[in-house]
């Protein structure tokens, strides 16, 4: 009986923790590596718990951060190598020979199988389908010029790409190639599914850090944006009351998604997966004839995908790939990306304000980042503080939904430049 008990004890998580630390130290090539192999697993569990705290107590994008944090916890529990209890094997997805489908089907855990939806690019477009159903392009169609603000807010995406390359040239220990730089830059689009879609193709090992940075900063938009918006605008500009939007006919709302899909396909085919699904969802909504489908797309389907996406993205965060200087670099660059995108939108808003003789409130430019509708609400809130009777919300929704199209196009540009 004692033997049975001992054999059981030797297979527990505690034994695995000790065994893995010993193996790690033996294989480590530097002091830092051996430190990570000892404290890596406990530290990752602590980080996962910290993220759970942020999600539950601070309510930072809890719908995503909670499953991400728990996924991180699940994949960092101490396990013996080759244990059948391991739920996630990032090595099957990131190996030099490409995707190891055979291994995944033979030995893959639950999270490996669910992660296929990320790796094969299934989840982000389905999320876009739901977003399409929830999006109203009316304010954009009523004021077509505001689409330009959605383009200006992609400034952060590209400047951060540049920043990431410069940073890796200057700082030893950070080594970002063009693929990694593109994935980090796309954080500036403020669009979680787009960031995941680009990163899973270009730099899969950075996926957890990029997804967590993107979603955390999206939750922090009400904190990040207002100081930048105030920095670039005068009090008088912030008080501008905009003309009421014209009504938009149903025909326009029906034609718009079809034309956008065709135009985007003609210029940036790589963006069509995202933009096409977005527009399918929107057309379904505007058509008014498929109520059952749109109900599923924006509720059940979206929620299911959110759970799968969150938990698997979190699960890819393993100590050896996550606890690096590069993760810190991503956190810093992600913030820079957000700031530049906001500034890009506001500055173009200012230029348009001048050109139109003060008809456009530059604050709506900040809504060009695609976090819908959070960024538009921030524009509304900052505007209303200066002029309590001003309602910028609908005006800001134009650049806001344009930002979704803009960041998907920016993603398409990166994919067409670097994915082939």
């Amino acid at each position, binding site marked *: 009986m004692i033997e049975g008990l001992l054999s059981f004890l030797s297979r527990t998580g505690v034994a695995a923790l000790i065994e893995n630390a010993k193996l790690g130290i033996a294989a480590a090539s530097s002091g830092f590596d051996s430190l990570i192999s000892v404290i890596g697993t406990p530290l990752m569990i602590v980080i996962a718990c910290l993220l759970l705290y942020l999600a539950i107590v601070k309510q930072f994008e809890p719908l995503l951060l909670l499953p991400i944090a728990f996924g991180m916890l699940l994949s960092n529990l101490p396990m013996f190598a080759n244990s059948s209890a391991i739920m996630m094997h990032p090595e099957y997805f990131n190996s030099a020979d490409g995707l190891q489908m055979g291994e995944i089907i033979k030995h893959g855990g639950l999270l490996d199988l669910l992660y296929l939806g990320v790796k094969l690019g299934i989840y982000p477009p389905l999320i876009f389908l739901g977003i399409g159903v929830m999006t109203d392009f009316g304010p954009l169609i009523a004021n077509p010029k505001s689409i330009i603000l959605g383009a200006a807010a992609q400034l952060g995406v590209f400047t951060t790409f540049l920043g990431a390359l410069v940073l890796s040239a200057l700082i030893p220990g950070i080594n970002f190639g063009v693929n990694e730089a593109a994935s980090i830059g796309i954080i500036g689009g403020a669009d979680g599914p787009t960031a995941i879609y680009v990163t899973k193709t270009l730099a899969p090992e950075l996926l957890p850090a990029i997804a967590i940075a993107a979603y955390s900063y999206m939750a922090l938009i009400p904190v990040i944006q207002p100081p930048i918006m105030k920095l670039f605008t005068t009090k008088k500009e912030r008080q501008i009351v905009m003309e009421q939007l014209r009504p938009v006919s149903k025909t326009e709302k029906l034609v718009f998604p079809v034309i956008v899909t065709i*135009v985007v396909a003609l*210029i940036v085919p790589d963006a069509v997966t995202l933009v096409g699904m977005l527009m399918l969802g929107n057309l379904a909504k505007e058509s008014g004839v498929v109520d059952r489908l749109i109900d599923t797309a924006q509720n059940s389907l979206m929620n299911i995908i959110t759970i799968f996406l969150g938990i698997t993205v979190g699960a890819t965060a393993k100590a050896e790939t996550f606890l690096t200087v590069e993760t810190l670099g991503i956190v810093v660059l992600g913030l820079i990306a957000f700031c530049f995108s906001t500034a890009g939108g506001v500055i173009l808003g200012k230029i348009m304000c001048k050109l139109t003789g003060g008809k456009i409130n530059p604050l709506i430019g900040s809504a060009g980042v695609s976090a819908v509708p*959070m960024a538009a609400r921030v524009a*509304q809130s900052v505007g209303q503080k200066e002029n309590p009777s001003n309602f910028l919300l609908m005006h800001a929704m134009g650049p806001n939904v344009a930002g979704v199209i803009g960041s998907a196009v920016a993603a398409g540009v990166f994919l067409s430049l670097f994915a082939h």
Partner: protein
Amino acid sequence: MSLAEALSEGLQVTGIGLIIVFSVLVILMLVMMAMKAIFYKPNKKDKTKEPSEKVETAPISDTAVDVTTVPVPAAADSGIDEGTLLAVITAAVAAVMDTPASRLNIKSYRRIGDNAPAWNKAGVRDIIDSRF
């Protein structure tokens, strides 16, 4: 990658990327402007309409009712046809005054400025702020 290489590669991609993003969205802007020209027929009545709504109710028969001014949300500009608007105003006045609509006769209406009470505006702002 050296600093010079990083800068040149980065600037190149930034340039290409911004040009493509802007051109796609500018094309979409032109498409939307064309859509407006083709599909949007502004309601002629809207233009001749007075920019404000003031509701004057007049008794048809025996009841004497004072002239009432009602702030109406700016629906008049949003293309709702005048008949519908009048019906809505009549119904609202009838409900407030507790009179059957048949006894009311709307002679003219005029929109007045945004005179929502301060507490009303504060409430709306609170609701928007609470949705972050």
